[in-house]
């Protein structure tokens, strides 16, 4: 029975009201007593061999007969009016088949209607101006250099501190925070800054478009095939059934591939115009300029506490540089301040400001990484002001429930603290100190992230005559291991081995709708849907077994039933049930870092790292530990290395390659230990699991900054912790008493 209700759902840290179709899922949750054979055990990726043999076809690898190659001309100016675009020389070049400009391209609204596909006003250096389709990449690139554009330049706005508002601030209050902080015996105040950071997935954004009559097929490197279908169909004015989006394998997204890109529409328009398939892939420089970023923040934070370290009030305000367009408003930078600690008086405010820089987008735990850095830095300062151990201060402010007034399905943060502190030897902290030019420090940080998943997600399970099964679902595997985890879940319910199950995903033409692969949603949303579908199939098999039961032979097993019914196959269907009313499902974690700081050079070396997470049941410990290791390393990058850089005069991106945009290498990886709090969370989902995609990055920059602050004896107010900033902090630490 389906019904409709209004419901609140928290996706990517943002609470949203929405209308929800509720389809109850009668599956009894897999709790700690459930005896599982396949789910919950390590399993190699089912697509591991395809990837390791080079056979896996990514969007970048799709080649079609007659395919043309598109390249995009981008504005070199951060703010300008396009006076004219003359593409005649480009069109005259051998091999050029079409050029799209504002003159001849449909005026398709973009970025929430704030601009159009190709507009007369360009608002950041990298904004799209024209697109060329040619017989090969080199010719398309040659053609870009032949397009003559006249610009009337304007002075760009680059400093978020003085930039105009870019939308409504997002304000949350409980109690009177200002009064509570001002009256508190201990007040810690500070300003913390985080940079714009780039996802830098190794497969750049890109699409291949092909028309067959009225039907459009698009291969796209995306985290949301159904989202791309919807946006693309709307942009082109097509009915949904004539658009098919495929993403079989994709080379990383991290939040930058949640939506339909302009490049997808360009490919589709040029393919229609030329009657040929068209491929439009971004270069690495374009990826750095125009494919989204974690938005920069300037956060001001005031914590008021009693002398025993108990929080009385939190005031948190963040300026969020959403860039030239950013339509999704500011990210939830205040999320950790709102929910991590017990505190009666809290005010958070996220203020979007608009600069002439590349638009922001979601990036792995958007807002929470930045907000956790500021909050956890300040919590260490509260501990210092009260003469307490940082872990003790966190325990004194522990909130068993969501302090906004919800209960949690489960909260394992206390166990995370306990396990991690023991593992890293937290008690040594007070004894660490200086040896020669080496300063040692130990830091920790806590993490919360809404990760219970949500409907809608639908799945179909087909059982074959040989008792193998296929799962059809319109989700996508962005590298996390979704294929494998869903196969494990179906296999568990059907009493099969995971390798007897094939999961067909990443194709809007094959599987029913499932949510985007973002917000740590996938396992907790698609997983229960697959389980429900597999359970439906199993129940049908059992009913058939009863019908087929005869005389002394007794009741046939599922394998015999399949053989018996042959091609009259059993098809199960299932949907993700509703989230429990009044309960919040979050993943938790605590990270511990030990660092060595070179007092003379400012170099930070992480000598040990312990990451502990509580995510309910870990469906596949092999893929989960990899997810945590990678998340921690990405967090290390954000803590120590990564930052988008614009030229302060022109606003042009200047760190647009992977030399200047610095990603951690194999040699920058410290020893990382990954631990999970055991046990399922059966109140969160029927599979007892919660999301894990984002949690591993959230606490890492804060834990590292806290360790460095401990080592140098001074606050670190800005990321990344580059040598200049660390040397400056060391100098401040030395001057401090």
């Amino acid at each position, binding site marked *: 029975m389906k019904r409709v209700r209004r419901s609140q759902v928290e996706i990517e840290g943002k609470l949203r009201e929405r209308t929800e179709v509720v389809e109850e899922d009668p599956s009894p949750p897999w709790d700690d007593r459930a005896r599982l054979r396949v789910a919950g055990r390590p399993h190699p990726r089912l697509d591991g061999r395809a990837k390791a043999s080079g056979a*896996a076809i990514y969007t970048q690898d799709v080649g079609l007969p007659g395919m043309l190659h598109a390249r995009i001309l981008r504005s070199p100016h951060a703010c300008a009016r396009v006076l004219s675009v003359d593409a005649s020389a480009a069109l005259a070049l051998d091999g050029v088949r079409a050029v799209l400009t504002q003159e001849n391209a449909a005026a398709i609204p973009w970025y929430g209607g704030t601009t159009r596909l190709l507009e007369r006003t360009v608002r950041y250096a990298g904004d799209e101006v024209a697109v060329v389709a040619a*017989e090969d990449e080199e010719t398309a690139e040659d053609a870009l250099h032949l397009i003559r554009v006249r610009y009337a330049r304007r002075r760009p706005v680059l400093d978020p501190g003085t930039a105009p508002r870019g939308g409504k601030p997002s304000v949350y209050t409980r109690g009177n925070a200002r009064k509570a902080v001002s009256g508190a015996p201990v007040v810690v105040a500070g300003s913390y800054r985080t940079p714009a950071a780039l996802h830098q997935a190794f497969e750049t954004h890109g699409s291949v478009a092909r028309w067959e009559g009225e039907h459009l097929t698009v291969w796209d490197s995306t985290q949301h095939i159904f989202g791309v279908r919807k946006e693309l169909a709307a942009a082109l004015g097509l009915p949904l059934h004539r658009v098919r989006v495929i993403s079989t394998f994709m080379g990383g997204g991290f939040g930058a591939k949640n939506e339909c890109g302009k490049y997808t529409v360009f490919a589709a328009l040029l393919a229609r115009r030329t009657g040929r398939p068209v491929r439009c892939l971004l270069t690495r420089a374009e990826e750095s300029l125009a494919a989204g970023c974690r938005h920069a923040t300037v956060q001001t934070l005031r914590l008021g506490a009693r002398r025993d370290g108990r929080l009385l009030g939190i005031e948190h305000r963040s300026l969020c540089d959403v860039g030239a367009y950013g339509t999704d408003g500011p990210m939830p930078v205040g999320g950790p301040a709102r929910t991590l600690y017990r505190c009666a008086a809290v005010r958070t405010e996220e203020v979007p400001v608009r600069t002439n820089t590349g638009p922001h987008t979601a990036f792995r735990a958007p807002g929470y990484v930045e907000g956790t850095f500021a909050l956890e830095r300040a919590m260490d300062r509260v501990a210092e002001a009260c003469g307490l151990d940082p872990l003790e201060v966190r325990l004194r402010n522990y909130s068993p429930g969501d302090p906004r007034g919800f209960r949690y399905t489960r909260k394992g943060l206390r166990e995370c603290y306990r396990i991690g502190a023991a593992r890293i030897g937290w008690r040594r902290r007070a004894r660490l100190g200086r040896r020669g030019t080496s300063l040692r420090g130990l830091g920790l940080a806590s993490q919360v992230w809404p990760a219970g998943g949500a409907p809608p997600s639908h799945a179909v399970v087909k059982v074959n005559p040989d008792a193998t099964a296929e799962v059809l679902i319109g989700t996508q595997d962005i590298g996390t291991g979704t294929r494998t985890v869903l196969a494990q879940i179906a296999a568990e319910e059907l009493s099969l081995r995971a390798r007897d199950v094939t999961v067909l995903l990443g194709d809007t033409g094959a599987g029913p709708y499932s949510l985007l692969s973002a917000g740590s949603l996938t396992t907790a949303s698609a997983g229960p849907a697959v389980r429900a579908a597999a359970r439906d199939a199993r129940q049908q098999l059992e009913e058939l077994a009863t019908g087929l039961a005869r005389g002394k032979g007794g009741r046939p097993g599922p394998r015999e039933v399949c053989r018996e019914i042959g091609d009259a196959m059993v098809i199960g269907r299932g949907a993700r049930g509703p989230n429990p009313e009044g309960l919040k499902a979050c993943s938790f974690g605590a990270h511990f870092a030990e660092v060595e700081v070179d007092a003379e050079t400012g170099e930070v070396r992480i000598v040990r790292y312990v990451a502990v997470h509580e995510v309910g049941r870990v469906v596949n410990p092999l893929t989960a530990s990899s997810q945590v290791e990678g998340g921690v390393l990405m967090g290390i990058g954000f803590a120590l290395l990564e930052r988008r850089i614009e030229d302060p005069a022109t606003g042009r991106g200047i760190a647009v390659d*992977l030399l200047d945009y610095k990603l951690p290498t194999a040699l920058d990886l410290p020893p990382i230990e990954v631990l999970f709090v055991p046990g399922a969370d059966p109140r969160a989902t029927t599979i007892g699991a919660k999301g894990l995609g984002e949690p591993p990055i959230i606490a890492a920059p804060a834990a590292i900054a806290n360790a460095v602050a401990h080592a140098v004896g001074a606050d670190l107010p800005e990321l990344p912790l580059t040598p200049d900033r660390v040397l400056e902090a060391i100098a401040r630490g030395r001057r401090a008493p």
Partner: protein
Amino acid sequence: MPEARTPKKPRRARGTKSAVHLLLRVNGEDREVTTAPHRTLLETLREDLGLTGTKHGCELGECGTCTVLVDGQPILSCLALSADYEGREITTVEGMADGAQLHPLQETFADLGAAQCGYCTPGFLLTAKALLEEKPSPSREEIREALAGNLCRCTGYLKIYEAVEQAAARMREEGPRGGR
């Protein structure tokens, strides 16, 4: 499979830019290619020869994703002009398996979760293959050094080290196999 295309000559007064005819030795086979002199080895492999296992990462030699072997040594195919590599033995990920039998590294990368999104995997595999051919029992430190030119944005490298170590152990036990 990408179709083979005859490169188009830009219509521009820049002297004669004839196409070059190359005889490349790829994965043990001689392959004839007619291509532009300014094609990189990466583009030739992917666009002219349809060997899409080698991936584009950054185009500037700063990520290792496009690594292939030349005479057994890992190099960046995005920073190599095809014309410079005539007569050299080029190995791509497609040349690692022996028929249906995957190379031990391919097996352990798959089994131990070293391929997450999988996009950087072919580059890592070839770099690791060169390492194990030179040092059958590398230490963890030697593996780190050898792989320091291949970036991975998903895994955090640990699973990759483990896969290389286990493949090394397997290869020592089993002795040389047919794979290239």
